[in-house]
């Protein structure tokens, strides 16, 4: 396959790869006996970045064979240095989910909260992703 066709195929895969991933769901108790429920959603997200995949794309589109080989080696080093169990892409801020409690309390001024659903999800566009923590719940009015 000529290099341009290969690049175009790779790019089109990258574009259609803007997809949602669901990592974790936890549904908690829902109390519908104490009044009308008003739904709310709170979300925090952080940029995830797969360095190894980015360098691999660079290796695929590199014009010279030696550059491509060098980049493939770097991609390999990056891949093995991030090897292990992960949930989503690596992020560079490990505190991004900590604000979520404050946001939940803000979203429900009555302070009576029920039916919290915790969702860990991601939206991927090639090597970049939005690593999302979403909380759905209900305020008891």
């Amino acid at each position, binding site marked *: 396959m000529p290099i341009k066709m290969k690049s175009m195929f790779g790019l089109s895969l990258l574009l*259609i*790869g*803007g*997809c*949602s*991933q*669901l*990592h*974790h*769901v*936890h*549904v*908690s*108790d*829902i*109390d*519908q*006996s104490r009044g009308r429920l008003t739904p709310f959603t709170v979300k925090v997200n952080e940029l995830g970045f797969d360095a190894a995949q980015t360098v691999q794309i660079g290796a695929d589109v590199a014009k010279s064979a030696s550059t491509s080989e060098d980049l493939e080696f770097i991609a390999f080093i990056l891949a093995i240095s991030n090897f292990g169990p992960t949930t989503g892409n690596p992020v560079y801020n490990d505190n991004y989910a900590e604000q979520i409690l404050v946001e939940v309390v803000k979203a429900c001024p009555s302070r009576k909260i029920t*039916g919290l*659903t915790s*969702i860990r*999800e991601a939206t991927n566009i090639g090597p970049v992703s939005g690593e999302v923590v979403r909380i*759905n719940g209900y305020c008891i009015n």
Partner: protein
Amino acid sequence: MLNKTTLFSLLALSLSGCVGLNTVSMTQVPAERENKISTSSSSWNFIGINFSNQFVDVAIDKLKEQCPSGKIEGVYTKHQTTGYLLVFKREVIVSAYCNEV
């Protein structure tokens, strides 16, 4: 004959899915456990490409409908993915107890 065998094997392979258990969670189980309710919702995709996770919210709405004026307690949530040939089914299965107050 070999072709037929290969085709049959491929068909059997595509019909029998492999299940992967993603997550399981459970909340506190109530003493009253007479009225059990359960629901599930799912989303199909091709080679893992999804554009939304809204099917999770559908499961919760369906659960709420089954206990409109009570407490839903002891919620057991299972998130699993079944893989067929190039096609995947993501599923959330929820069961709980509905206790009227």
